[in-house]
Each structure stands twice: as structure tokens, then as C-alpha cells.
């Protein structure tokens, strides 16, 4: 059965004004149920790719489609942003209301929900991230981990179909990071996670895209990409310790023992197609 295609980038090129291109004709597809990790060295464009997907940046060439909509025009942008939630790298950018409850309510209010529905959305989102009862807390008084969860709640309150999570584990202590891994495992939505934390990517994603030098270098199953030491070193990354140590990844059961996928994850020129996992 064909899996629904949620996001498609076709021959997308992008450059920040006056600088060399960040992306050169890249192609990528995200399908329903994907848990996709975006990895790459600093400056490889992980954050920019997410901003392209929600229309905060516009490609210089090529097309970006999300949930069947072309990312052009105010109406389409609003529809896409309603259904594709972006968690920013710095939680302080996302929390701009005085209290956590008001911050979480901001999105649902913009959706035009009535008072009761907004209240329900806030409660549901705060409960989902384990912050029930934090509604009256002042956003700027939260710890780093709490801010990260509150920011995630602001996104979940919009009830998006796709979650784009930009460096979600950055700055978290091991316990908060572990709890975030468990939380993301419980959220049954398509997720795209950008991170330098390879263990975190391995724990949360079943597919990995490696970006570098304006291209998609590899797109394949998590352990196949992250476990390729030559590839990882070549692009300034490291094989996660857990792979070196032979610890089975949480998504190993999806792999079908790697039959038919072997080392076929490297991509000279991306086609936008990959073996759907779900």
C-alpha cells in the first residue's frame, strides 16, 4: 500500500543573499509515519531546510510542497503552518508570552478556536509533554529542559500532522534528554529531527538524511547511515558510540535485517525516493 507523501522538495536550490548556494537542486520526500533525522556538519543547512519546509525561507529554484500544497501565497502558507509544526532551536524564541499557558494558547487562538476548545488544547498539549499544571508558570522562570518541553507543547497545541524539531536535545541534561526521547517515541506523528547528537538521532529516528556541501549525501535507514564510519568521518560526524558498541537501535525491528538495503544509502544525486519504512 502506498504511504502518503507529506513533504516533497524537488530540485530545490537556496542561497542566503550574496553567499554561495546552501542547497543545489536537492530532492527529498517525507512520508506519513517517517521519523527522519537530518544530520550534517555546522552550516550544512539543517535549520534552513526546515525553514524552507514551512515557508519561512523561499527557494531560489525548485519546488517545495507540503501536505499537497505548493508553498506559495499567504493562504497556502497559513494552511501548511497550521499542519506542520516547527520547534525552534532556541526555546526562548518560541516562548514570548508571560505564562506557559498563554504561550501554548497562542497557536490555538490564532486558529480561531473558541475559549473552551483553546483550554482543552492547552491542557492536552501540556499533559502530552508532562507539564500539566504549568499553565500559570512564568515562561522565563522555567529551566532549560522545561522551556524545551513548553516550546514543544506550543507546537503540539496546534495538533500538527508533521513535527519539525530543530536540535531538540541541545542543552538538555541526560535525564531531560532521556525523557525527551521517550516523549517523542510516544508522539505518533511524522517527525523530522535535526541534530548533532547522533545518539539522540539513533534513538528517535528510523531514517537519516545526511546533508553537506549543498547536497544530500546519504538517505537511508538510521544504522546504515550513522554506522558508516568512512561516510561519517568524511562529513565531520562520528559514528554513535552505541553502534560501535554493538547496541541494537530502537528501530532495528523495522530493518528487516537490512535485506535489499545493504550499503545502498549513498546518493550522488538525490532522486527523492527511498524505501518507505512504515
Amino acid at each position, binding site marked *: 500500500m502506498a504511504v502518503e507523501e507529506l513533504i516533497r522538495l524537488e530540485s530545490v536550490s537556496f542561497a542566503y543573499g550574496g553567499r554561495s548556494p546552501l542547497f543545489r537542486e536537492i530532492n527529498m520526500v517525507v512520508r506519513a509515519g517517517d521519523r527522519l533525522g537530518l544530520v550534517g556538519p555546522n552550516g550544512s543547512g539543517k535549520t534552513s531546510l526546515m*525553514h524552507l519546509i*514551512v515557508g*519561512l525561507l523561499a527557494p531560489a529554484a525548485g519546488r517545495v510542497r507540503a501536505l499537497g500544497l505548493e508553498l506559495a501565497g499567504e493562504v497556502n502558507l*497559513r494552511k501548511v*503552518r*497550521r499542519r506542520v*509544526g*516547527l520547534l*525552534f532551536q*532556541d526555546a*526562548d*524564541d*518560541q516562548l*514570548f*508570552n*508571560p505564562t506557559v499557558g*498563554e504561550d501554548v*494558547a*497562542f*497557536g490555538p*487562538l*490564532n*486558529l*480561531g478556536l*473558541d*475559549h473552551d476548545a*483553546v483550554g482543552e488544547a492547552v491542557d492536552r498539549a501540556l499533559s502530552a509533554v508532562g507539564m500539566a499544571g504549568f499553565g500559570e508558570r*512564568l515562561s*522565563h522562570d522555567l529551566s532549560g529542559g522545561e522551556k524545551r518541553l513548553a516550546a514543544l507543547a*506550543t*507546537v503540539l497545541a*496546534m495538533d500538527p500532522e508533521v513535527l519539525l524539531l530543530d536540535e531538540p536535545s541541545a542543552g538538555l541534561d541526560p535525564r531531560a534528554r532521556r525523557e525527551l526521547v521517550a516523549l517523542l517515541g510516544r508522539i505518533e506523528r511524522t517527525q523530522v529531527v535535526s541534530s548533532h547528537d547522533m545518539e539522540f538521532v539513533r534513538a528517535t529516528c528510523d531514517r537519516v538524511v545526511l546533508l553537506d556541501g549543498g547536497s544530500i549525501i546519504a538517505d537511508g535507514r538510521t544504522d546504515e547511515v550513522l554506522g558508516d564510519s568512512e561516510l561519517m568521518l568524511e562529513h565531520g560526524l562520528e559514528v554513535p558510540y552505541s553502534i560501535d558498541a554493538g547496541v541494537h537501535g530502537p528501530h532495528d525491528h523495522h530493518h528487516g535485517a537490512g535485506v535489499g538495503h545493504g550499503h545502498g544509502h549513498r546518493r550522488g544525486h538525490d532522486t527523492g525516493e527511498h524505501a518507505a519504512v512504515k
Partner: protein
Amino acid sequence: MRLESDFSRGETPLHHLDGRARLVAAGVFALVVAVFLKETSTLTAALALAALLAALSRPSPMRLLRRMAAVNVFVLFLWLVLPWSTPGEAVWRLGPFSLREEGILLCAAVTLKCNAILLAMIALLATCELHELAAAMRRLGMPARLVVITFLCARYLHLIWEEGRRVRQAAELRGFVPRTSPATYRTSAGLVGSLLVRSHERAARVYRAMLCRGFSGSFPRAGARPLRVRDVLISGGIVAFAITSGAIDWLLRN
């Protein structure tokens, strides 16, 4: 710096006053006291009302005194200068200097005005959280963009302050000691420039985060509460007092 004021937590009737009622009462009171009241008697009455309102809001005495001290330091400097420099009838002489009645009256008026307005603002505005005031401004018909700018300025002042502190600390950790020298001016200009760039970048990121959650130019509010009788009575009472005292002041002067 905190987003809510030191006085915003409490359960007095003033803490539950509608935002619109607060803004109207505070605005009219401050305008009348600052512009129209000239007589010591009416100014004293205004100060008495403001002090009564402040007392009703039950602030922490230490916080209130600290806030009043900050304003009255400025007033103190006026007392040191104006009575000696304002033209008028001398009431006491010290060598070549004359203490003049007009200067004393002017200082008294400034002192009464400053303290009356300060106490009224603490009682009426500081007992409210900023987002409630922003919503009230919008409901009173202020342009949405202006309300958003006001709200976000206040929201991010502390972040910019923190950013500035970090930049300064980073410089100090590498041996920077402010002096009166070209090197200090150059470094200070660099620090301010860096702060402006960082603030601008943060503002852009916050705006993007807002766009991602459906922001379309104004803060939506759920369940705007209708004005209650108590709101109208308190606000109306303050406005009536201000107008009446303005009229009495005018009659006393004519």
C-alpha cells in the same frame, strides 16, 4: 527584570479591575494632575486619593518605598536647585543666594504631582499583568501593531538586558575595564553594536516562531470579559474626582 511588575500579585479589588477601566482611570488622572492642577490644595487632594488607592492595593511597603525613593531622588535635585534659581520674592538670604517663594511652590507642586502620579500608576497599572494591559489597549481601539510592539518591547527587555550583561561579562573576562579612553569608546561601541545585531536577530527569530503558529498581526484573546459594575464605579469615581479637582483648581485660580 521580570515581565510582571512587583505589585501585580494580589487579591485586592484593584488587582481584579478590568484592564480598560484601569487604563482610562490612570490616563485621565495622570493627564489632569500633570497638566491642569496647579493649586497646592487640589494637588494635595490628588496625592491623598493616589495614596488611598495605593494603600488599597496593599503593596509590599519596602517595594513601594524603593520605587518612591527612585523617583524622589530626581525630585530632591529639583529642591536643591529650583528654590534658589526661580525668579520671585526672596524669603531667606544666604550671602549672595536667595531662597524664593515661587521656587519653593514650584518644587512642592512637582513633588506632589510626581508622587500622586507614581502612586496612582502603581495602584492602577502595576497591579495588572502586562498581557492584560495589552489586551485592554486593543479593546480600547489602539492599533494592533502598536499594541504588539509595546507588548513585545516589554516582553523582551529583560532578554536584551541579559544579552547585554553577557556581552559585557565576556569583555570583562578578557580584561576589559571601562576607562575614559579611545580604546574604551571603541570597545563600548563594539559592544553596543553587537547587542543591537543580536537583538535584531532574536527579534527576527521570534517573529518567525510567531508566524509558524498562525500569527497575523495582532494578539488574539479568548473570552473578552464584559465590564462589571465595580469596574465602572472605581474607574468612574477616579475620573470624576480628576475632572472635579481640575474644575475646582481652575475656579481657585480665576
